[in-house]
């Protein structure tokens, strides 16, 4: 380039050097974009720093927003790892071509095949089960069997569930589309939505409270919310939790619907090796026990010791459907829910 004299060039380079953010250059640091909120990941990251001496930088936010940030920052993105709280977002990141495949025998042995992408772009790190919660004094466990049976007329006006805007409802329906097909799912949705006790509102804990106080008889929620209420410091939540019980649906066929929180390494990663080390650390036994202890999530492997609350719910059969399918069918699920009038 002839526009600049050599001295001007070196001056400009020096100027650029000064203003460039420092974290981009550091080699023993790993940067994470995390949809998992800070209090549910940072203690683990601190442990990782203690063990390896590597500094971990964290930004948390909503999965899609982080993915958009990652996409627009492109190859210069400072992020090394993308962490999400559902398989759908990881699938979307894979489609958006921002993750890289990692060939790691260690990770493949730690994480079962159905909880990671087939081309090794991302790995599940904890399991979240969507279960049925019922009022102990009004419903017998024997009346319950499957998600499918919740569309039966006997439950008319008795079911509470949150809005269809919630990702775990979307993935529940996406999973059903994958296993039962669209036709059956649409029929099921019609019956299920017709059984709602009230228009969907609030979060999963609100549905559990509604069951406890008699507004409805059963609710479909993620199990860790019930765990959170059982262990809550708030007396009212404990009382509500004690009035309900957990039921594992579909134990005799495809198993209870599960989603994952998981992570992948970005294409722009400056420090792939350290990022890989971090993911392996999050999948290792110590971290897996922590998820169970801290947030009542299930480990990705069966051999891991779980907390007393999880133990009290007993073992369960989880759906072995590859979680990628949840991402693949997500928009079809939403459209079906819209058509069925699930608000």
């Amino acid at each position: 380039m002839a526009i600049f004299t050599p001295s001007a060039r070196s001056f400009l380079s020096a100027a650029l050097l000064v203003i460039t953010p420092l974290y981009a250059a550091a080699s023993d640091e790993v940067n994470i974009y995390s949809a998992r909120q800070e209090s549910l990941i940072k203690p683990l990251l601190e442990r990782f720093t203690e063990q390896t001496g590597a500094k971990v930088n964290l930004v948390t936010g909503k999965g899609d927003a982080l993915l958009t940030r990652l996409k627009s920052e492109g190859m210069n993105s400072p992020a090394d790892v993308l962490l999400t709280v559902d398989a759908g977002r990881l699938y979307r990141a894979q489609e958006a071509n921002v993750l890289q495949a990692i060939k790691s025998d260690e990770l493949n042995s730690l994480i079962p095949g159905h909880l990671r992408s087939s081309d090794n772009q991302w790995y599940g790190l904890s399991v979240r089960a969507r279960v049925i919660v019922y009022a102990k004094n009004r419903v017998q466990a024997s009346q319950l069997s499957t998600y499918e049976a919740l569309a039966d007329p006997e439950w008319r006006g008795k079911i509470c569930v949150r809005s269809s805007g919630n990702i775990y409802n979307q993935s529940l329906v996406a999973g059903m589309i994958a296993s039962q097909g669209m036709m059956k799912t649409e029929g099921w949705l019609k019956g299920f939505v017709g059984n709602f006790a009230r228009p969907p509102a609030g979060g999963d804990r609100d549905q559990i409270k509604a069951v406890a106080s008699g507004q409805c008889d059963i609710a479909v929620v993620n199990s860790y919310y019930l765990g959170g209420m059982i262990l809550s410091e708030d007396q009212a939540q404990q009382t509500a939790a004690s009035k309900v019980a957990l039921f594992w649906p579909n134990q005799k066929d495809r198993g209870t619907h599960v989603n994952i929180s998981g992570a992948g390494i970005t294409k722009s990663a400056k420090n792939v090796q350290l990022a890989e080390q971090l993911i392996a650390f999050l999948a290792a036994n110590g971290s897996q026990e922590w998820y169970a202890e801290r947030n009542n999530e299930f480990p990705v492997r069966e051999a891991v010791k779980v907390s007393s609350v999880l133990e009290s719910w007993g073992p369960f059969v989880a759906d072995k459907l590859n979680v990628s399918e949840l991402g693949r069918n997500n928009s079809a699920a939403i459209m079906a829910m819209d058509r069925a009038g699930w608000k």
Partner: protein
Amino acid sequence: MLVIFASLLQPFSSAWQHLFDTVLTDYITNSLLLMAGVGVGTLVLGVSAAWLTAMCEFPGRKILSWAFLLPMAMPAYIIAYTYTGILDFSGPLQTALRDTYQWQYGDYYFPQIRSLGGAICMLSLVLYPYVYMLVRVAFLEQSTAVLEASRNLGKKPWQTLFLVALPMARPAIVAGVSLALMETLADYGTVAYFGVSSFTTGIFRTWYGLGELTTAAQLCAFLMLFVFALIMAERWSRQRLRFHHHSAQKKMVRLRLKGWRSALAISVGGLIVFLGFILPATQLAIWASVGWQENINGDFFRLLFNSFSLAAIAAICCLMVAVFLAYTKRAFASRMELGAVAIASLGYAVPGTVIAVGVLIPVAWLDNQIDFLSTTWFDYSTGLLISGTIGLLVFAYLVRFLSVALNTVDSGLTAIKPSIDESARSLGATPSRVLSRIHLPILRTSLLTALLLVFVEVLKELPTTLILRPFNFNTLAVRTYELASDERLVDAALPALAIVIIGLLPVLLITKSILNERFSNE
């Protein structure tokens, strides 16, 4: 802004057909109802509060005149959480009712808080201070002569309000209500929590759920066109009307309320403040009192510092740009300028996340171009210079909250007749002297108000901060959101309460100087 409108040029995907067939009507009706409800709510609450404290005299007026501003410090999503905690079916109130009267579910009627009506109430309760603040200033700045003339002509105080004071305060009322409405349109937290499918939740559903970023941006573009049309319609309807005041700064005598009137004023005013602030703040305090000792630590103070300094920087930047724009508009009031100012103020009606993405994409592109040039010319990679820094965050706040500052400065500036400038100039004053001796003293209230509004807004702001912030940078709003989204309201109460309290500081500091404006010697 351009990023969003550019989406209109892209082909409309099949997702539109689906939206038309199923949920679009719902989105539009709900949003319109919400706007109508909040419009009426904030208008009634804001104007009555302003009238009571500006024009009437009764015991407790002074306290009420700043207490009316308190709800402003309360983010809408937080008030929604607290009221749900109190009024929900499984909340303490209904449980107590059931226990007392042995009722079961379905035995009695109780309004459902998580509904469209509930959302209207929540938003009105926290948004009316915008109307109150601006209208109160307008009332105080109104020519006493005109008001007195009205009374001397035998009009009752009520008639004076409706025939003289309100029409004269129209720019302020419009500015206040439109701020409230824009905030309503941009609100995501409250409506999403209440399960009301509004246009905004629709935008997110289309983006997050269907993965259709383009369709979501198109929806958003339509939202902005709608807001733009509203602003233009309002401008057009008051076309050549001017609202300058011709007042000698004569002290006005407040209408003294006696007996039941005074009691009514106190109880209405007190009720508004109670519902908008005291009740929810008490609930927060009760929640926060569980385990606060372990939660107040170094980390918590860092959050306080981050939130406070970020809000202060953004407020100052916003004010500077707003003043610049307002003066440009005043000096060269051509149609095009008006249009540009109107467009710049659209940002407020757009959900924060959309602004964030609209800022993120072009800036990251620019960063990458700079990096590319630098790499090819100097063989040195700059990385991303602006993306992921506080600078980008402040820029995004500027885009989003400019209209808050601009509306306020602008409505203050319209009150200064251009002829005042002309007389001053013809008497030999330099432009800078006109500015410092005439404009600044008159505008002081408006400037402080603008500063305060932006400060509180940024403090409460969530989605933009969440997406654009640098690594390891947290604010109180982020912490509150994370805990609340995990349905841990009790843990979220402490940072939420801190937002409210920090928000109170400037409210109290600045209102002192705003409120003592004209009746200082009483």
